[in-house]
């Protein structure tokens, strides 16, 4: 009886965690002109924090078994779904609370970053948050599509927030065209599955497909759905929009993009796989594992190589994000609960670090009016805290213990070992080292003035020359975009330099590091066990369906939970590996800055030029790649599911 009372009282939290940010957004959009500036900021931050709290409560209270909420109480009758549900599990709720934390940090950061039209910006940010939470919690395929589109629409608008300048405008267009095509693809996939099963509920579709052989329609539906979500996740070859969007969006928006949006795509892929397609007859698991691992490895490596080739800091971080996303895809693609658990912890730890990095780059842009590594060489003095932020961010991305990402990395390595795929660790380590090395190289150049001065000689054929002109144009446009908003407020400060960096821009990244450190040091005791249990519950298709459809009377026995042996997260070997990665990243940065290694750098630049050429930034090319990727996925899906 007490159990029932508890579930009734907490089930109201599920819709509340979406309604609160939506109501906040409506308030911002409708009434912000009535409110003074500080009130707008405070209300937006309070709403984001409230959403975070709600989703955290949700995460804690759904740890035992998923919490199902039926809209208007339209419960399934006799195993037949007639309503729309939210199915909140700890993994989805954790993802949602991560979105809440990052949105709060971004809003605090906005306090002094933008100075005009903040009502609209805050409203968009809060809708983005609401849509992300909706995306994480929904148990309905069509609702998943609506949330996908809502995330996308607000993201387009936020990317093009400084649409008066060419780079943000074009970034927004590339982003909008590719992602609306992805939306179409998802919608068609939803339609095909509806045609075949007559249901939109994930659990019910999964039940209808259980034990069936995959026919052409199901394979195409799989390719369309997965492909659409992989566009959002920016997996090679669907990733071409990502550097354009991240490189031109305002910094607080980049925080949400890098920390949440890409991961949402991946979350949807695995959600749909686990609940819908994994039950198909024919034991497609191992072949699907190979497909997902292939995409993951490709993305991790391409992202890391491209990150190393960038001098535009935001584009560099965009590729770092992409590389890490490939790593999560490797973890998720193992299709074991342990791999999913490791990837989840990595997502949390890396999201905090990546956000801190973007916020740090934002401070540099704000103070020095440039995001070009070459132009900023040696101009870091006076920004010591930001320098520490960026170096620490890069090291945390390289899984520096005891931050939480090192715990996730240990789980992931363990999962790879158990799946008899230990060589994937090498790919993971390599891409982590290269991408962190790129960030460290930039930090060394900016704060220590290391490396050759490459500014005045445009024709020496160094690795960054081909794109330099374009990079310059886009970053000045960026800087002006930010300061254009400042005009009315800081007329005399038109050069964009506040005398001191405001605390609201310095503290959020440090707070994010504190969270990552706290989680790593055991703020939540046994976090790896919690993650493993959550991942096991997430991957257990039968238990999920039974809970949603109510075919069992009481709480569902948690079959998967027992099957997950706790990982040795803090083993000495794991710590040594992580430290080795950190050292190797430092070495990469050192080699990249060493004047004697110019020949090596030129050789590498020539070797990767074809890859850079592919990133043409033209929307037509991006759409072509998208179509080709979908065709590839359909072919692979046919091979894997049949």
């Amino acid at each position, binding site marked *: 009886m007490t159990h029932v009372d508890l579930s009734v009282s907490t089930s109201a939290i599920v819709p509340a965690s979406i309604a609160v940010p939506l109501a906040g957004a409506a308030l911002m959009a409708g009434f912000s002109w009535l409110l003074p500036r500080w009130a707008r900021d405070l209300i937006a931050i309070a709403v984001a924090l409230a959403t975070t709290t709600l989703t955290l409560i949700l995460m804690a209270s759904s740890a035992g078994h998923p919490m199902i909420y039926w809209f208007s109480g339209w419960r399934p009758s006799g195993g037949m779904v007639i309503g729309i549900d939210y199915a909140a599990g700890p993994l989805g709720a954790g993802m949602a609370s991560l979105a809440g934390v990052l949105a709060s940090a971004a809003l605090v950061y906005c306090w002094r970053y933008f100075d005009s039209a903040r009502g609209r910006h805050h409203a968009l940010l809060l809708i983005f948050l609401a849509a992300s939470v909706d995306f994480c919690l929904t148990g309905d395929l069509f609702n998943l599509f609506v949330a996908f*589109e809502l995330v996308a629409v607000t993201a387009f608008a936020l990317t093009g927030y400084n649409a008066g300048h060419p780079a943000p*405008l074009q970034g927004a267009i590339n982003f909008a065209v590719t992602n609306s095509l992805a939306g179409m693809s998802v919608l068609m996939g939803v339609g095909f599955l509806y045609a075949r099963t007559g249901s939109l509920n994930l659990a019910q579709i999964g039940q209808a497909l259980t034990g069936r052989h995959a026919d052409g329609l199901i394979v195409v539906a799989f390719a369309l759905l997965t492909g659409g979500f992989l566009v959002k996740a920016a997996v090679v070859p669907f990733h071409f929009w990502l550097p354009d969007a991240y490189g031109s969006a305002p910094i607080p928006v980049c925080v949400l993009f890098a920390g949440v949006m890409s991961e949402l795509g991946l979350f949807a892929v695995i959600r749909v796989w686990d609940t819908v397609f994994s039950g198909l007859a024919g034991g497609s698991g191992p072949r699907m594992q190979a497909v997902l691992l292939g995409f993951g490895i490709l993305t991790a490596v391409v992202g890391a190589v491209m990150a190393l080739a960038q001098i535009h800091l935001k584009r560099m971080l965009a590729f770092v994000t992409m590389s890490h996303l490939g790593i999560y895809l490797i973890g998720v693609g193992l299709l074991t609960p342990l791999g999913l658990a490791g990837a989840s912890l990595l997502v949390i730890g890396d999201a905090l670090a990546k956000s801190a990095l973007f916020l740090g780059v934002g401070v540099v842009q704000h103070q020095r009016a440039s995001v070009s590594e070459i132009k900023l060489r040696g101009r870091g003095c006076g920004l010591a805290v930001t320098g520490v932020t960026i170096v620490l961010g890069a090291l945390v991305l390289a899984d520096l213990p005891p931050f939480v990402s090192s715990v996730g990395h240990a789980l992931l390595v363990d999962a790879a070992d158990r799946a008899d795929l230990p060589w994937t660790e090498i790919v993971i380590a390599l891409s982590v080292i290269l991408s962190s090395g790129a960030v460290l190289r930039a930090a060394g150049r900016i704060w220590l003035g290391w490396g050759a001065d490459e500014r005045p000689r445009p024709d020496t054929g160094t690795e960054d020359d081909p794109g330099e002109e374009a990079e310059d144009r886009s970053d000045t*446009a960026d800087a002006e975009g930010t300061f254009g908003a400042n005009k009315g407020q800081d007329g005399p400060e038109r050069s964009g330099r506040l005398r001191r960096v405001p605390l609201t821009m310095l503290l959020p990244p440090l707070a994010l590091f504190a969270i990552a450190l706290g989680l790593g040091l055991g703020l939540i005791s046994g976090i790896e066990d919690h993650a493993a249990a959550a991942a096991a519950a997430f991957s257990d298709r039968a238990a999920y369906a039974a809970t949603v459809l109510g075919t069992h009377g009481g709480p569902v026995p948690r079959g998967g939970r027992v099957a997950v042996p706790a990982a040795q997260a803090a083993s000495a070997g794991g710590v040594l590996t992580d430290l080795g990665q950190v050292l190797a990243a430092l070495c990469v940065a050192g080699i990249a800055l060493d004047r004697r290694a110019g020949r090596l750098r030129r050789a590498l630049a020539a070797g990767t030029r074809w890859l850079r050429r592919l990133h043409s930034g033209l929307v037509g090319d991006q759409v072509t790649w998208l179509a080709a990727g979908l065709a590839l996925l359909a072919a692979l899906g046919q091979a894997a599911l049949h």
Partner: protein
Amino acid sequence: MQALALTDVVVGAAVTALLLALAVQVHKRAGTLDPDALRATRE
């Protein structure tokens, strides 16, 4: 099924409106609507 179609019409309208706004903005700034002529994000 009607509910789905209606919802998608609403979603589609929002996306299209935004794309149109971006296209208008591009035409205003760059004087062209040829996507291949836009080079601001070239690698």
